[in-house]
């Protein structure tokens, strides 16, 4: 039997850049095939070629032994190739049901069959274990994780033979990932072939059957068993071994000075009375499920939203509520959850992005552009940003380097409290290690760091103390060197297990 998908020596050239320089791999029906590679290895280009969004320069793509029309996304979709992209492409104003059936709405005669649309959408969501999402909700009211679920439901609404998932777990927390895996396993059992892209190496063994590794636009290893040791995969990806992912743990980190203090902060409905302290030099992690109120808590602390009650103190001084400008002046910095839409001006140069929070120090009457560039260059090179050319437009950088630009902004500002929301999302493993080192260095220099992350291993690896949030309140606290993923997850999930819901659907 022909493989479900066969890619033969695929090449894609852009003006000046060869994104793919010969990729071979195949996916069998019912297989979950993981695609691994650092940012820029060509993974996104490869799946765009398969889904028809991008026309390859040379090479062949066969679906069930027959050539797939190139550069025609709707033809690919008709043949049963569905893709869930890294950047979710949902329309905010549409409802869930409308999004699931966008452009192939069920009809009765010339009219939309709204009842069937809602009913079918509900069924698809239930199949994903998320029947709590109401098909009539608008997309803009959903958190990123729920949007991801809607995207998957949309892919399922087509008669899918090959499902491509580009980092579906990047915005999910560990509890939801297990739900997602359950769905993927069931699709595979139905004979659907799945291409699964992720930066999280531990996921490969949990979900994958085989692995193909891309590096610099080539497939450097193809069809390896999922049990391949992690070190070997990392070496293939980066061409060298990453010596150590997490920095050395320091003993007795943090001083006695409480740098950030939060007292009974409430911002209903998401944050229901949170008190915490972060000492200078300490890295405190904030774990919990997506939607447990972690991002909202950071926004309240930073003054982007106004709390209903409670106060925030920096270095012992109370911040006025809901004033981000004052919080920044007091030494706070925030690297937001979504770098592209909240952290950066994508069309601006690195220099301007870095200096934006601290332009005052370059202004003596007029802005001293030369001093600005020099100061920024120093910080960019300290963070090993690639490229170090401060005039490069931020849109062009990889996720990891974009995150470094955000961090450089707060380094330049000499911030005393740094709030990081999912700082390594969508970042490859080598850059992750660099970011962890930067965080450790900042803490060593006396900055108080509060990190939100859905990767429990990451929290344990870099935090001196970990807090777990559930339904808007802190429910657990543990020292980083004593924490276990299992324990954190237990405290993060609500007493009512969502796994039961999956059972019902079966």
């Amino acid at each position: 039997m022909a493989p479900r998908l066969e890619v033969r020596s695929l090449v894609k050239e852009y003006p000046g850049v060869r994104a793919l320089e010969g990729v071979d791999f195949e996916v069998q029906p019912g297989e979950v095939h993981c695609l691994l590679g650092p940012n820029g290895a060509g993974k996104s280009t490869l799946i765009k070629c398969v889904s028809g969004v991008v026309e390859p320069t040379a090479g062949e793509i066969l679906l069930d032994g027959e050539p797939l029309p190139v550069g025609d996304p709707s033809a690919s979709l008709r043949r049963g190739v569905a893709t869930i992209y890294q950047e979710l492409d949902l329309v905010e104003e549409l409802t869930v049901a409308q999004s699931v059936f966008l452009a192939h709405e069920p009809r009765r005669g010339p009219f939309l069959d709204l009842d069937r649309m809602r009913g079918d959408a509900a069924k698809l969501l239930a199949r994903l274990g998320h029947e709590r999402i109401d098909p009539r909700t608008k997309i803009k009211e959903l958190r990123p994780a729920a949007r991801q679920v809607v995207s998957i439901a949309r892919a399922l609404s087509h008669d899918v033979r090959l499902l491509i998932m580009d980092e579906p777990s990047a915005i999910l927390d560990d509890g939801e990932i297990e739900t997602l895996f359950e769905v993927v396993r069931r699709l595979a059992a139905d004979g659907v072939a799945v291409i699964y892209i992720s930066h999280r190496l531990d996921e490969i063994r949990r979900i994958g059957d085989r692995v193909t590794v891309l590096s610099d636009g080539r497939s450097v290893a193809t069809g390896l068993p999922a049990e391949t040791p992690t070190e070997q995969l990392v070496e293939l990806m980066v061409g060298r071994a990453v010596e150590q992912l997490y920095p050395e743990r320091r003993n007795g980190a943090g001083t006695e000075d409480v740098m950030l203090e939060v007292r009974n902060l409430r911002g209903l409905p998401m944050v229901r009375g949170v008190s915490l302290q972060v000492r200078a030099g300490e890295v405190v992690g904030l774990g919990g499920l997506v939607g447990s109120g972690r991002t909202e808590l950071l926004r309240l602390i930073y003054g982007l939203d106004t709390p209903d009650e409670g106060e925030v103190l920096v270095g012992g001084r109370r911040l006025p509520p809901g004033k981000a400008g004052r919080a920044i002046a007091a030494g706070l910095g925030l690297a937001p959850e979504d770098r592209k839409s909240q952290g950066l001006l994508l069309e601006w140069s690195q220099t301007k992005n870095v200096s934006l929070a601290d332009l005052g120090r370059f202004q003596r009457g007029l802005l001293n552009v030369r001093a600005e560039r020099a100061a920024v260059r120093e910080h960019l090179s300290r963070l090993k940003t690639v490229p170090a050319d401060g005039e490069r437009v931020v849109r062009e950088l990889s996720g990891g380097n974009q995150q470094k630009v955000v961090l450089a902004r707060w380094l330049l500002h000499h911030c005393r409290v740094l709030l990081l929301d999912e700082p390594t999302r969508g970042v490859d493993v080598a850059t992750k290690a660099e970011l962890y080192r930067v965080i450790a260095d900042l803490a060593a220099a006396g900055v108080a760091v509060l990190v939100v992350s859905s990767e429990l291993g990451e929290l344990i690896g870099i935090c001196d103390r970990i807090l777990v949030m559930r339904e808007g309140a802190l429910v657990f606290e543990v020292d980083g060197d004593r924490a276990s993923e299992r324990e954190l997850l237990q405290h993060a999930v609500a007493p009512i297990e969502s796994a039961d819901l999956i059972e019902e659907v079966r």
Partner: protein
Amino acid sequence: MTTSSPESDRTASPSEAMTERRVAGFHLQEYALVIVVILLFVAGAILKPDSFPTWDNVRNMLTQASVVGVLAIGMTFVIATAGIDLSVGSMVAAAGMFGGILVDPEGSTLLFIAGAIFFATLLGSVNAIAIAYGRVVPFIATLAMFSIARGIALLLNDKLPVGLLDLNGGSFGDPGAFSLLWFGTGRIFGIPVSVYVFLGIVIAGWVVLNRTRYGRFVVAVGGNREAARIAGVPVRRTILSVYVLSGFLAGISAVLLCARLGSASPVSGNLYELDAIGAVVIGGTSLAGGRATIGGTFLGVLTFALIFSLMTQMDLSTEVQQVVKGAIVLGAVLLQRPEARL
């Protein structure tokens, strides 16, 4: 998903690297506009060799261009924040009329200027508050002001214009320095005073936009409001300020216009908003915000002035000119689409 860029942290060769300048394309666009301006002038010189390339005509063109040019600088700031100000033409008329009735039957040049600028700034502030604090969409808020200001201009003197020649002893005569008419018809080293005013505002606008923190904030707010806020930019105050600025500059524009005509008219300034927006867009400032160029706006103003001077000399009617004007603005916006950009 229509993005077609490869994953982008592959180290492209330096020549492929896009710096901000290249991607924004406005340096390129500015060079192109310089060529357009030169070509238009050459075309005029060939088509109308007797009347077009004369010092008189150039002077005339520049004087007329200054009135809209001042508005276009304010409009550049507004559009940089991803806003729009449709009320500038009406504000020019209302400001002129307000200044006019202040000095009618008697008053001083200074009172006229102060009155006109004050009133336009006031109207601009109404726009600003409605948009920044009332969260009215700029298009609607300034469309309302477009109507309100025009109505006020007509009400102030019962639809009649106000003569301002008394400020110059009753006739155009020879305007003394710093008299009102001097701003419209006076010259220094053969160049009209209004042109100096315009150039001064162009330079000030460039410096503020490119060499001050405030200017950076203006463009940041237009580029990504949420990211600007998280970086500590006072978003609301910044938005507020650009509409006040636009009103203030409409006041200056009104002074230049009335000084040239020797009167304030309630029907003046008609469609100036289109001229100003057109000049800004031709210059390369993005209607989506986040990218602004004063140099481009300046060249856009010159381009418009040359085209209309040429058409007037070719005896094309104002109706034809209006069609051409609209078509140019539409074309410029079409060229601004992301796919059409370099």
